[in-house]
Each structure stands twice: as structure tokens, then as C-alpha cells.
């Protein structure tokens, strides 16, 4: 081969070779994500298969108008073609029996390298559940660097597997998980739920704001010591936990069942009542009593979350206990941040005027919006 006749062409390749800062390998190559979840009874699977749009474009062609933009409309149009191609390259077996797969829904999600189509499959498992296995060969023939990432969750444990051309079949392990691991998992879930559950946080804050004050002759005065403030707070938080533990248990065990819209609306209402009570003691009750009464309502709210997390009969008590401990810890963490500040601030006009009254009003307004949205199924915040 004469080098010089191909010279200009070769030179382009050269420049890339010489440039010191091209890092193509710094990007993520092609992956698909296969999330498989076993339902509580072990009778059906919930499968979510996320495939990169860039891969689907090459495999079957999505960009029908050729404008280099893939729209939701274009993706939906190709749903059957995607399903046909993809399902041909995935096999899930229950023991030796093949599980029938069909695409039930098409959704969209994003990963760090772009948009992904999400195929939702909910195959039923006939017969008893034996060991599940997955065989997969999407894209391997045209891209040997492609990987299938499987996340399998049977309610007790979640495991990750990697599928590659040299390892295209895997057994999904369902080894029982230790109670301790389960306990820790649910503690974390409890903490997490408190932190992302704005309504519980606001309820707690509304209850805590008066904990550093007391009323004397119609006037608010700062409590003298840190210890009494701490004790009041601890009592409120613990009683709240105790109360919602009771209803949480009743709801999870299916002894009591209330419609979730009613519960959510009542939770919002509970915040409003506490706020109003901060101005006029309409309830003639002390903080911990209010915490107990409304804690019962909040417990039903937690139950919905816990059911969504997937509870299995084994170690139910441990899960419930862990979740409650987590909620308590999550609340205490908030108290640790809030209490010292409001304690130090309690004597100032700023605290009484802006934090106590202003804060209460603000919380009240938010709760009112929630209440209206939840009770009357309105959308006031445009979310």
C-alpha cells in the first residue's frame, strides 16, 4: 500500500492520534437497564427495561422524519417494532419454564448519557416460583462492548448483575436476607421518609415552635432552661412516634383501612389545626396530647409508603419496628438542628414576631393549599 497516495485521508486520522486531549473512553458506552421486581405473593414480576434511544435508533430507526431529534410521538409510533426486536432478545425462565413477555406500557427516563425508552412488562408466573434465570443478547452482535445491567429485587434483597457477550445468562439469587440487614434497611427507609415528607416535617415544626415559650397572663414568655425545652420536645416527638406506630401497625396488618385521599387531607388539616392552636389555644390540650391524637392520623400516611416499599410476611415485625425507629431518628435529627436555634432565639422579639407567628402563618398557608388540593382534588400549585 502506498502511503503517499492515501496521504490526505490518513492525515486526518493522524491528527486525532496526535491530539493529546481526546478522551473518547471517558464516556459511558452503551448499556441497558433491566429492573426485575418480584411481587409480594411471588406470582408475578414487574419488569422495567430501559434501552437507550441512541441504540434503538440504530437497531430499528426511531427518528422517522430524519431531523436528528427523537420525539415522544416518534418513539410511541415505533412501540411495536421496539417490542418485537427487544423481546426477541430477552428470555426469562422460571425453573425450566419460559415466562411469557409482552410490553404493557412504554415510558421514558433519562440516564447520565441521554434518553431511554422504558418497556414495562408484568408477566405472571405460572406454577410455583423456582429459581429465575435471564438470558439476554440485545446488541451484543453489533456492539460487543454493550452491557445489560440487571437489578433484581424480590422484596427482601436487591442484587445487581452484569450481562455481557461472554456472560449472557444469569441466575437470579433469592437467598434469604438476614433480619439485621432488613432491620437496617427499614431504619433507613424511615429516616428517608421523614426527610422527604414535607407534611410530617411541617407538622413537627408547627408543634415545636411553642416548645420554647410558655403563656403567662396572655403573654408569651421564654422558657427559662434548656432542659425543660428538651424534655417537652422529646415528649412531643416520642408520643408522635408512639401514636403513629399504633396506626401504622393496624393499617399494615389490614385491621383498619382508610381511603388514602381522606388520610392525606386529614394530615394537611392536622397541620392547620396545630397552627391555629399556636395562636388561640382552641384545643385546651398540651403539645404532646396533640402530637398523640394527630400522630394516629400520620401513621396511616406512613402505612401507604411502607406498603409501596414491598413488605414480605417474613420479618414483618422487624420491618415495622425498623421503620418506626427510622422515623424517630429522622425526627430527632430535625430536632437537633431546630431546637438549639429556637431555644437561643426564644427571648427575642424576632423569634416571637417572625419565627413563631410568621412561621406558623406560612406553615398554615402551605397546609391549607395541601388540604384544598387533597380534599377537593384540585391542582393549585401547578405541579
Amino acid at each position, binding site marked *: 500500500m502506498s502511503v503517499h497516495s492515501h496521504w490526505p485521508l490518513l492525515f486526518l486520522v493522524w491528527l486525532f492520534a496526535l491530539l493529546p486531549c481526546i478522551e473518547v473512553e*471517558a464516556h459511558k458506552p452503551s448499556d441497558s437497564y433491566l429492573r426485575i421486581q418480584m411481587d409480594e405473593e411471588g406470582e408475578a414480576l414487574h419488569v422495567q427495561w430501559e434501552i437507550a434511544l441512541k441504540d434503538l435508533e440504530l437497531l430499528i430507526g426511531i427518528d422517522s422524519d430524519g431531523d436528528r431529534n427523537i420525539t415522544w*410521538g416518534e418513539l410511541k409510533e415505533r412501540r411495536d417494532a421496539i417490542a418485537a426486536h427487544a423481546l426477541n432478545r430477552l428470555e426469562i425462565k422460571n425453573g425450566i419454564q419460559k415466562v411469557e413477555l409482552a410490553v404493557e406500557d412504554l415510558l421514558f*427516563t433519562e440516564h447520565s*448519557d441521554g*434518553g431511554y425508552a422504558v418497556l414495562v412488562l408484568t408477566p405472571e408466573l405460572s406454577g410455583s416460583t423456582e429459581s429465575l434465570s435471564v438470558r439476554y443478547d440485545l446488541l451484543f452482535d453489533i456492539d460487543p462492548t454493550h452491557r445489560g445491567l440487571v437489578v433484581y429485587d424480590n422484596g427482601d434483597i436487591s442484587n*445487581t448483575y452484569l450481562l455481557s457477550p461472554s456472560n449472557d445468562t444469569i441466575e437470579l439469587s433469592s437467598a434469604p436476607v438476614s433480619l439485621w440487614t432488613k432491620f437496617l434497611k427499614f431504619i433507613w427507609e424511615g429516616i428517608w421518609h421523614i426527610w422527604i415528607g414535607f407534611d410530617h416535617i411541617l407538622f413537627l415544626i408547627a408543634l415545636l415552635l411553642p416548645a420554647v415559650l410558655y403563656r403567662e397572663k396572655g403573654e408569651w414568655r421564654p422558657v427559662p432552661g434548656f432542659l425543660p425545652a428538651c424534655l417537652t420536645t422529646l415528649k412531643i416527638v416520642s408520643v408522635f412516634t408512639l401514636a403513629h406506630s399504633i396506626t401504622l401497625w393496624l393499617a399494615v396488618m389490614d385491621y383498619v383501612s382508610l381511603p388514602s385521599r381522606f388520610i392525606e387531607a386529614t394530615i394537611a388539616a392536622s397541620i392547620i389545626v396545630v397552627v391555629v392552636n399556636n395562636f388561640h389555644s382552641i384545643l385546651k390540650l398540651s403539645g404532646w396530647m396533640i402530637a398523640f391524637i394527630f400522630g394516629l392520623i400520620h401513621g396511616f400516611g406512613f402505612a401507604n409508603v411502607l406498603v409501596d416499599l414491598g413488605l414480605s410476611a417474613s420479618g414483618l415485625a422487624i420491618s415495622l419496628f425498623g421503620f418506626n425507629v427510622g422515623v424517630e431518628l429522622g425526627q430527632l435529627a430535625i430536632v437537633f438542628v431546630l431546637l438549639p436555634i429556637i431555644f437561643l432565639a426564644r427571648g427575642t422579639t424576632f423569634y416571637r414576631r417572625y419565627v413563631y407567628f410568621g412561621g406558623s402563618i406560612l406553615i398554615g398557608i402551605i397546609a391549607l393549599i395541601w388540604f384544598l388540593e387533597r380534599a377537593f382534588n384540585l391542582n393549585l400549585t401547578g405541579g
Partner: protein
Amino acid sequence: MNASLLVAIQFGTSLIFLLSAISVATAGDLSPYEPKNDSVVLERLPTIPYSRDQLVAVRKELTRNPKNVQLAATAASSYINVAKSTGDPRFLGYARAAIEGWWDDPDPPATILEFRAKLKERDHDFKGAIGDLQLFSKKEPENAQALVDLANIYRVIGDYEQANEAVEQLSAFGTEFQTAVCRIPIMAVTGFAHEAYDLTGAQLPFARQSIPDSVSWLLVMQADLARILGDFDLADRHYQECLKDSPSNRYARRAYGEFLLKRGRAKEALKMLGEPDSDNGALVLATIAASRSGRTSLAENWKFMVERRFEELRLRGGKPHGRFESQFLLEIHGVPEEALAVALTTWSHQKEATDSYNVLAAALAAGDADAAIPVIDFLRESGTEDSELLTLVKRLRK
């Protein structure tokens, strides 16, 4: 009044802290959803010089004739070029598939070796790439490509003796321009930066006339050589000159962005780096630039993006490039010990100036000068004149 103000500030900051902690916690929610309407754009595909039909046709042809050397080589070469121009590594995977039949072959045809080496290099398998290129060069001793690639990999791993040897071999039959372009980056790091600067300048008239595509590379090289020699104003002028010629040149913008960032001109760097694409290196630099120019929320968003990309790379059994991970750990997370460990691991197999810089900077921040000794020795032995590296070495010696 003062006490009230203090309490107000304290209360306000705590509330902001609490709310931001919550918003960060919930930002991780990326559950699948149904887009609002049909016209929502879900993905913008990069522009490539081939249509989908062409790509499909090539693939079908490959399936029919998996052992056709010419076909496989042409396909691999096109895919590698697309991967370079788009930054999308899945095309490297397609290139790999095209030559898969020869992947484990100890003695494949020369054209296959050329691309196999390229793919191994991209995969950081430098040893494998060198082996392939040596075999390639043995089969075709007058093939310039093999020697250019060989010299380049030897330079990247810090084996300057072997790199120079490859250039010598090339000079026996290559043109003056070919040899110069191959030699300059090695001269730059082995004590001949002045000569390299002059040599680069001398190539420009010919390049402008005959190979205009190479001009921006030469100008970036010239800028970097000026930086090495400590003349930052001159370096700046060369970068400006290059961007005047080709304002949207990705590599020039990134190199200039990095230069500006090191000069403490974070705001300009941020503008230069622009909205980062899928390239992790550019994203990490942009995150650092955003954070240093006080664009907190932008920096937070990008930080989250970097973390997610790193996490997804690990999930697939790979790992992020140590060069960028160490910069990220040092500059964004502020954990110099961890940054140092990553930088040292990277440096053990890749010794470009940035890799040495990362070790020295992390060692300095971690107060662990001893850890940098191998790097300092290496730089002294190779005769570096890099002003930035030498400044760090001096500070470490104190």
C-alpha cells in the same frame, strides 16, 4: 437589634440548609414517566456523515461476509471516525464488532491490526495496543500510521526513548511535516520546548497552504508550548488566534478553558467550556469553573451529573477515568487524600503532563510530599520545563 439580626441570619441559614438538603435528596428521583405531549424532544442525535440506512447496510454486509478484511477495515475506520467526531463510544463498540472475528487472532492482517490497536488504546490497554502496532509496523515497515500511533502511545505512557525511536524510524521515509508533527509533542515534555515551539511555528505556513485542518492543532500545540515555557500572555494570544480561525473547535475550546481555569480566570473558563456535552473531562472542568465563579446552583447540577455518570460507569463494571475523577475529588469534594490515591493509580500507567499535575496538586493539598517523589523524579529525568509543574515541585520541596 443586633441580637435579633444575628438570630434572623442564623435561622435563615439553617432553614436554607435544611431545605437544600431536602431538595438535593429529592433530586435523585428519576423514575420513568410519560412525556407531556408527542412533540417533546427526548434525544438529540449527533450529526454523523452517514445515514442510518448506510450504517444498516454496512452491518448487513458484515453479517454476510464476516471475514472480508477490506470491508471490516473500512467499517471499523468509519465507526472510529464517527466515535471521534461525536464523542459517542457506542461507535467504538460497532468498530469492535466489525473486526470481532480477528479480536483474539495472534496474527491478523495489517489493516485489522491498525484498528485493533486503536480500540485497545481507547480502552487503555496500552500494552496490547503497542504489541499490535509493533506487529503492524513489522508487516508494513513503511506505514507512517503505525509509527505515529506507536510514538504517541509511548509518549502517553512516559516511555520517551521508545517514542523517539519510532519518530526516528518515521523520519527515514516520512515527509518533514509528518515527522515534525509526530516529534513536537515528545520534544515538548523532554526538555526541548523552545525548539518544539519554533518547529511548530515553522510548520504553520505549509499547513495553512496544504493541510488547513491541521492548523488549529498546531496553534493549540504552540499555545501549550508557550504555557510550558511560562509565557502565559503568548499562550493566550495563540489560543485567541486559533479560536478566531475556528471558534467552535471543541478541542481548542477545552484546552483554552483548562488554561484559563489554571490562570484563575474561572468566569472566562466557564464561558469557554460552554454547556458540557457527554465528555466527562469537559464536564468536570466546567463544574470546577462554575463552582469557582460562584455559580453554585449550576455547579451543584453538574456535580450531580458527574456523580451519576461515574456511578453508572462503575455499575457496568468499568470505572471513571482517573484523571477526571482525581480532579473532581480534589476540586469539588475537597478530599485531597482520595484525589491523591486516584491520581497516583492513573499516573502509574499514564504519564501525560495533566496526570503528573494531578498527583503534584493533590500531594500538595494533602500535605504528603513523599507520595509525589516518583513523579518528581520522573519529571526531572525526562527534563521537563513545564512552568506549572515546576512551580508545584518547588512548593512541595519546601
